[in-house]
């Protein structure tokens, strides 16, 4: 029967508790990692194949640092392994370094590592219903295993969760048999233990990540910022961090913290940013020149934004123009962010720099007037160039509301157990490209724009139930806060404050206001906390 009828394509769920631990560097010189594994794991695991160097199961799979973290949690919580936190960190670090994923293997699935959970995944057919209805499809795509280990994972699932085969979307098929006969072999082919990428990455010289970085990013409620981050190497891929910079409105930001690098490129930082604990999850490029990822609040991972770090070098670099757009025929202020910025400023064809309002080596603020055709311009300061960093446009043709599909969760007062899960919205504007039509491939991305935010019921049923009245509210910065948990006597069937909404962003400006929409599900609290969805 269709009792549990929710097919989870969107996953947006429980808070992170332990994941922060990944950023604290493990103790220096963590004795020989393999020796540490043997001392803890051989109680239950065995020295098995002489060829593979032993350690049953452990040698047959590769995972992200968070993947190893989850496995270690299970060893502790379900099987009785005990170890002090510093040894746990050292074991996870050693496992991720020696049995990790190559950058290219993790690349398509980084959103999960970045804890960016408000997205609809596109999971390949054989896995969608079999494997990605309880958790993210990236959870297994971020692992590599031997064929035997993919099959043992099926046994682990059934053993731990014996009613699995009774759920809707399992009981309509011989689940266990299909999982063993079809899914596990497919996984072994798609996500094999042995890969050329991993062999190459193991052999590669890993980038050195200590030094000085320029950061650009976004903090919900505060906006875009640029900053300098210095990473001082301590031990075992651990770094001490200092971050100092400013938001686009000129206000300062500063933070101190630490970071650990796993598998030679997986950057995990934690810092107090103006008193707010934050986490950084980034991947370093193979040449160590850049890192890219996301920064979010440690206590509310849904509140975060993209983060990019560019290593400072001996010569000038242009990293970003904020905002990245100027309207034709209008005069506006543009902040050019970079490193060692010196020399003449140019914003490309048809854009006149009227005045340099302020400048130093990190930032040049100019007043400029745009003309010429719609399109992207190169930003230059002296010899430093930033291709396509400034968009010139005539009018905003469409607004994209991000995330497109989100899940908020009621919480708080009525239900002391779980915090509310909010959603931080952003509106990204586009101008029509050469074809003059909005919504086509040649649209020009203008970047985030200020909008006015509102919510509406998702459809007639939601309107009938007054979902827009009860399910929550959105503020001027686009932060949606759901209602309180618990029954609401004002609603029928003693329902709580859940609901289905449309989130609407409106830009005035042109002849007619332009609207962008996204859909939002305000759901019940999720009581399960996971390291990775």
């Amino acid at each position, binding site marked *: *029967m*269709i009792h549990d009828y929710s097919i989870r394509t969107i996953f947006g769920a429980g808070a992170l508790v332990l994941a922060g631990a990944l950023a604290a560097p493990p103790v220096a010189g963590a004795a020989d990692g393999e020796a540490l594994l043997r001392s803890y794991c051989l109680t239950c695991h065995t020295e098995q194949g002489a060829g593979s160097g032993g350690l049953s199961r452990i040698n047959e799979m590769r995972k992200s640092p968070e993947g190893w973290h989850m496995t270690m949690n299970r060893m502790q919580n379900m099987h009785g392994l005990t170890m002090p936190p510093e040894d746990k960190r050292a074991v996870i670090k050693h496992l991720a370094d020696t049995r990790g994923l190559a950058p290219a293997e993790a690349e398509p699935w980084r959103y999960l590592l970045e804890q960016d959970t408000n997205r609809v995944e596109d999971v390949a057919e054989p896995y969608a219903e079999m494997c990605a209805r309880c958790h993210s499809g990236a959870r297994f795509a971020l692992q590599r295993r031997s064929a035997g280990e993919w099959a043992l994972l099926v*046994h682990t699932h*059934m053993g731990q969760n*014996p009613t699995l085969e009774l759920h809707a979307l399992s009981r309509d098929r011989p689940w266990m048999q299909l999982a063993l006969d079809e899914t596990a072999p497919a996984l072994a082919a798609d996500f094999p233990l042995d890969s050329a990428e991993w062999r190459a990455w193991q052999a590669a010289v890993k980038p050195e990540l200590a030094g000085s970085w320029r950061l650009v990013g976004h903090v919900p409620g505060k906006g875009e910022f640029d900053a300098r981050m210095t990473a001082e190497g301590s031990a075992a891929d651990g770094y001490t961090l200092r971050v100092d910079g400013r938001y686009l409105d000129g206000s300062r930001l500063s933070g101190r913290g630490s970071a650990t690098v796993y598998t030679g490129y997986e950057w995990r930082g934690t810092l107090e940013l103006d008193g707010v604990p934050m986490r950084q999850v980034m991947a370093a490029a193979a040449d160590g020149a850049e890192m890219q990822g996301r920064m979010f609040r440690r206590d509310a991972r849904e509140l975060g934004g993209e983060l990019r770090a560019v290593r400072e070098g001996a010569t000038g670099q242009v990293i970003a123009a904020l905002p990245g757009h100027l309207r034709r025929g209008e005069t506006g202020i543009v902040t050019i962010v970079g490193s060692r910025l010196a020399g003449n400023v140019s914003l490309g064809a048809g854009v006149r720099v009227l005045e340099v309002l302020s400048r130093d080596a990190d930032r040049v603020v100019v007043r400029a007037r745009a003309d010429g055709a719609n399109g992207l311009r190169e930003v230059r300061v002296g010899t430093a160039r930033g291709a396509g960093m400034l968009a010139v446009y005539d009018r905003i043709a469409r607004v994209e509301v991000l995330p497109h599909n989100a899940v908020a969760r009621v919480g708080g007062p009525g239900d002391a157990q779980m915090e509310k899960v909010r959603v931080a919205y952003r509106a990204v504007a586009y101008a029509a490209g050469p074809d003059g039509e909005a919504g086509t491939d040649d649209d020009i991305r203008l970047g985030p724009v200020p909008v006015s935010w509102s919510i509406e019921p998702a459809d007639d049923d939601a309107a009938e139930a007054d979902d827009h009245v009860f399910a929550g509210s959105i503020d001027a910065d686009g932060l949606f806060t759901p209602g309180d948990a618990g029954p609401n006597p004002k609603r029928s069937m003693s329902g709580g404050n859940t609901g289905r909404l449309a989130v609407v962003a409106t830009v005035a400006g042109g002849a007619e206001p332009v609207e962008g929409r996204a859909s939002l599900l305000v759901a019940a609290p999720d009581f399960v906390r996971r390291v990775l969805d």
Partner: protein
Amino acid sequence: MSSIKPHRTAALAGLLGAAVLAAGCATKTMAPTAGVTDEYLLTVTRPGQLQVMDMQAHAILRSCDIPGKFGSGSIAPSPDGRTAFVLSNMWEDVYGIDIETCEVVFSAIQSGGDIRVKTFQSVAVSVDGRELYTVQNPVRHLPDRLEVLQPQLAVYNIADGLNAQPARTFPVNRRITKIAATATGEVILGGADVEAIDPRTGATRVVTALANWDRGPLWLPPDAFAMHSQGEHVNEYIMPYVTARFESEEWDFDAAEWWWGFSRVDLATGRAEQMEIFPLEFIIFTMVSDPNDRNILYGAFNTVSRHDVAKKETLAVEPLDHTYYAINISGDGSKLFIGGAGNDISIHDSASLAKIGSIQLPGDMSTADLRVARIRR
């Protein structure tokens, strides 16, 4: 993933329940009257009590402690009505409890050594009252891996009493939930198909092909599932299912006809009828037949409803105060008892479906059964 969320009202109801329970114990006793059949409503509540209820007075007569942790609360009454076999200890152990004395007269601890056994509601007693059947889903816990083993029917001699060991086991298919014993000596196995097994030889036969039915491409393979089955009053077993008939191979889900159907096994003969019974308009978790007219069915989940199987129609539907999982009916067909999921049993007049009473319980029923024991005096 389906998960059972804690009920917000549990704490409050716990307090109310305690008062009801105390009153019940102090004042009510079963009054044996020769030559009549007494009916007792049975369910299980957290943290682990078998509740024996008076179906006339709508009150708890007795609360018997069940060994082990809560889960699942599946119940099989013995044919003489005196013993309730309850699945407990997180779906692992079966305890036979004398419903008049609360004495634990039978136990089967199914897990042992490195094998952990779960039973998904599958508990039944043979018609002669001598054998207990369970379907065991074993998993071997090795030091560094889990190994899922073939499920099996386990046959216990009830006379073995406490710590009984299986007298025989036979392999069965996966994903079996509710089972029932027939007068012909078979055990009905409710899974992807409805099958029957001979508990002497292990021979199985298909009673009703469901997952493996052959009705052509336009019929959606049925989603058949039974967490409860309460046909003791008419000696039958119902496996409900949902299916759809498509108009064409365009597979237009909106244009398809959606149906409830069932396989209804006559436990006297082991023969079943299978058919679509009424259109799918709302979710029903359990169905019972009317003892006076088996053409009439009642169903419960968020609503209580009455259906006419021959006309393939829903005759009436009324909202319930909250979600319930299980429904049962008095032997005379006059009253519906609706429980499971929460901590109250909602009692309805079967003719009007109007609510006529309720029984507050001291704890949550969750997945527990709601069954009727009949004792002839």
